[in-house]
């Protein structure tokens, strides 16, 4: 059965190679039949990858340990859900999974987009085949999931314990649906550059499309931080480690792109920015996966141990150089159609938005690759960790929040003083009141004050936008307020969906500021019956016990939470010890969450069979706002991208020679 999987990979490899040639020739020889052939090759690629993935799942679910990958990442006692997730639990399987999702997106593009921009299809298909060809090459030659062992082990090694929880089932799926989806906008960008059709038509198609991977990437990142919070047990959710940064980088450029595109659509400006942003978004997904998989951050030399590293490096270099060449040779086509009418305008804030996102991305990339760079150019390897990122990115992100408040208040093209006064009055007043309130409550630190102040200003801006929008609709159409509110979304889907996304962002910002600046922690080693305090709470250790699960032992502490002497809850922080990997115990945090704060308890260790246990406790104020804000963000994205029935446009003929009234 494993051979079937491998055979299918090889056939796909040949098919995608053909697809590249067919696409390229189709354009230069002007042959629609070759375009159609290349398109069909994408369908075949998608179908064959589905077969390959189905085969690997079959091997995992039937415990076929003759296959090296199955033996390395599964075991008989593994719960079925994790056997399914084991498909993306290891290097080879996850690369196969990546290629499979690329197949899905490619088929979707070939199915739904082929009639939109026929002049671009040939090269769009060629580029998609090119990316597929690369990944198939990596899988076949450097990371074959169907490799066989010369013997049949009795049982497998089991899945990495860190991956055996619900978040880790969903998080890679979300990330991959995010990363890989950006291949399609990239294909369109490259096709438009190569063919010279750099008009603004394909942008509208691509903007709607790009929302989908952006949506999934956001979910993936949120799930990853939630996992870190619940499983890693250090009280936080984001440590700026290379793997986390790898997922954030394309999100930053992707978000910038989604905004910047609005300017090109309306005013034909920022064309070069948009090309660069699409390319970077795609390129950073490849860089991110290269960093995560190759171990290159730990040491420059580690990456050559497997063949994957060099292959990715070559791909990154070739695509970067190719893109730069295309960009420079097509530069005259990318000239702006308009100029900025005024410095104080919404267009300027969008430009500033691009710059800020680019800066955050740049600092993050620099900090992440600093160990490699310093090792290459100096004798020492210097690491850069959370404090650097927090100190640099924190203020820049605060600036971004302020921009989120200012941008919607400015009109397109030009703002003048009367308009500014009317627009900014209430948001500024609200912000100032918030700052005063904070100072009165005792806060003296600059950053929380700036942070909360900006958040309040954005909130006020959003309320004002919605209120004025509803009022304007009611005046024009005499609708009742609730209908007007709903119709705002139907008629201005992107704008108001986007506002909900911004609302989600500021709710998350509240969570970030609260847990970041007001966290309280404590630790203690307690004998049975002893207590520790944290904030207004008391935690009493009542004893240690053990439960048996299918493939691990669950050691849990019984802890009673008290406030003012009254018991509130029983908390059970755990340590899971997996049979196959006893040296890698995983802690399971006991969490009591609420709107005001999270109480977070970790079982750090125990002695004498549980007579003494050591704990680490945290109070994370407003932490739940982060997750709730994430949900709001997701909801807003859904609103923005939901296909809604459009009103049919009625064309109005203007007689020749007529001049419209101005």
């Amino acid at each position: 059965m494993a051979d079937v999987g491998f055979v299918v990979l090889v056939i796909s490899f040949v098919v995608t190679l053909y697809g590249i040639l067919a696409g390229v020739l189709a354009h230069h020889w002007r042959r629609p039949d070759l375009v159609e052939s290349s398109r069909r090759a994408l369908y075949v690629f998608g179908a064959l990858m589905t077969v390959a993935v189905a085969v690997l799942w079959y091997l995992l679910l039937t415990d076929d340990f003759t296959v090296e990958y199955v033996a390395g990442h599964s075991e008989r006692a593994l719960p079925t859900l994790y056997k399914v997730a084991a498909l993306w639990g290891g290097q080879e399987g996850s690369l196969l999974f990546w290629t499979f999702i690329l197949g899905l997106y490619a088929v979707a593009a070939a199915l739904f987009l082929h009639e939109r921009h026929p002049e671009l299809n040939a090269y769009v298909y060629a580029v998609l085949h090119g990316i597929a060809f690369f990944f198939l090459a990596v899988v076949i030659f450097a990371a074959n999931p169907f490799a066989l062992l010369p013997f049949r082990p009795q049982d497998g090694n089991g899945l990495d314990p860190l991956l055996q929880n619900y978040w880790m089932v969903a998080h890679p799926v979300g990330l991959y649906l995010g990363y890989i989806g950006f291949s399609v906008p990239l294909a369109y960008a490259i096709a438009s550059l190569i063919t010279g059709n750099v008009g603004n038509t394909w942008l509208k198609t691509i903007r709607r499309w790009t929302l989908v991977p952006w949506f999934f990437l956001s979910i993936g990142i949120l799930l990853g931080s939630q996992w870190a919070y619940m499983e890693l047990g250090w009280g936080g959710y984001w440590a700026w480690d290379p793997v986390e940064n790898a997922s954030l980088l394309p999100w930053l450029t992707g978000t910038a792109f989604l905004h910047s595109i609005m300017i090109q659509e309306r005013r034909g400006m920022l064309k070069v920015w948009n090309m660069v942003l699409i390319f970077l978004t795609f390129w950073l997904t490849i860089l991110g996966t290269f960093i995560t998989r190759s171990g290159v951050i730990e040491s420059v030399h580690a990456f050559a141990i497997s063949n994957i590293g060099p292959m990715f490096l070559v791909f990154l270099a070739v695509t970067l150089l190719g893109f730069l060449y295309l960009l420079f040779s097509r530069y005259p086509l990318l000239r702006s159609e308009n100029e900025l009418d005024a410095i104080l305008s919404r267009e300027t804030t969008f430009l500033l938005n691009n710059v800020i996102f680019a800066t955050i991305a740049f600092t993050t990339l620099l900090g992440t690759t600093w160990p490699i760079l310093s090792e290459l150019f100096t004798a020492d390897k210097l690491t850069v960790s959370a404090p650097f990122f927090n100190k640099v990115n924190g203020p820049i992100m605060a600036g971004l929040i302020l921009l989120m408040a200012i941008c919607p208040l400015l009109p397109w093209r030009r703002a003048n003083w009367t308009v500014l006064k009317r627009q900014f009055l209430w948001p500024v007043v609200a912000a100032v009141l918030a700052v005063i309130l904070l100072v009165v409550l005792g806060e003296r630190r600059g950053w929380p004050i700036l942070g909360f102040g900006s958040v309040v200003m954005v909130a006020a801006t959003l309320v004002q936008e919605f209120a004025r929008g509803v009022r304007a609709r009611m005046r024009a159409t005499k609708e009742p307020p609730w209908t007007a509110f709903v119709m705002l979304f139907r008629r201005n889907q992107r704008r108001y969906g986007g506002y909900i996304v911004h609302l989600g962002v500021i709710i998350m910002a509240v969570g970030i500021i609260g847990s970041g600046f007001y966290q309280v922690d404590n630790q203690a080693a307690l004998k049975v019956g002893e207590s520790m305090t944290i904030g207004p709470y008391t935690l009493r250790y009542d004893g240690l016990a053990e439960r048996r699960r299918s493939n691990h032992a669950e050691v849990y502490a019984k802890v009673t939470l008290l406030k003012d002497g009254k018991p509130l809850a029983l908390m059970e922080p755990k340590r899971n010890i997996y049979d196959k990997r006893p040296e890698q115990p995983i802690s399971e945090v006991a969490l009591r969450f609420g709107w005001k704060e999270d109480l977070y308890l970790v079982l750090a260790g125990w002695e004498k069979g549980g007579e003494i246990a050591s704990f680490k406790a945290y109070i994370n104020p407003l932490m739940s706002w982060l997750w709730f804000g994430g949900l709001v963000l997701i909801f807003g994205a859904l609103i923005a991208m939901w296909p809604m029935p459009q009103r049919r446009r009625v064309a109005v003929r203007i007689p020749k020679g007529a001049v419209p009234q101005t």
Partner: protein
Amino acid sequence: MLDALVIVFAALVAAGTFLFVLQPVLTQAVAVSDEEETVETLEELYAQRDALYRSIKELEFDYRVGKLTDEDYQRFVGQLKRQAADVLRRIDQVKEAQATIRQRLEAQIQALRHGGAGSRAAVVPETGGVKPRFCPQCGAPVRPGDKFCSQCGAPLTVG
């Protein structure tokens, strides 16, 4: 034995793929004609028109919620409407050119259907551009492809 099955499976999949992917090439297709080029330009123009309509709509909305002064609104909306009129004009031009090409092709097809020595079919201009033609009998203008004058009914000859 398993290997043999795998080989058979591989051969079947490869053959099926081969046929499916190459079918459009093996059954010939038409090359890109002039018409397709104007279709591309038309798509681009429609997209420009739609983008301008959207901008006008947005400007109106911003004005209604009070982000623009009367003066700025009038100026900007005027600019946009002028640009939109321009685009609509160009769309009309392209459509006319398309119609002309279609008429020409029609006429060529007609000529091929009824062509042959001695027939009294209308001649179709081989080169581009439509030259106005007149009935030799009554002088009324005739459309290209007409075999009889629509005014006096005289048959139209080659030439």
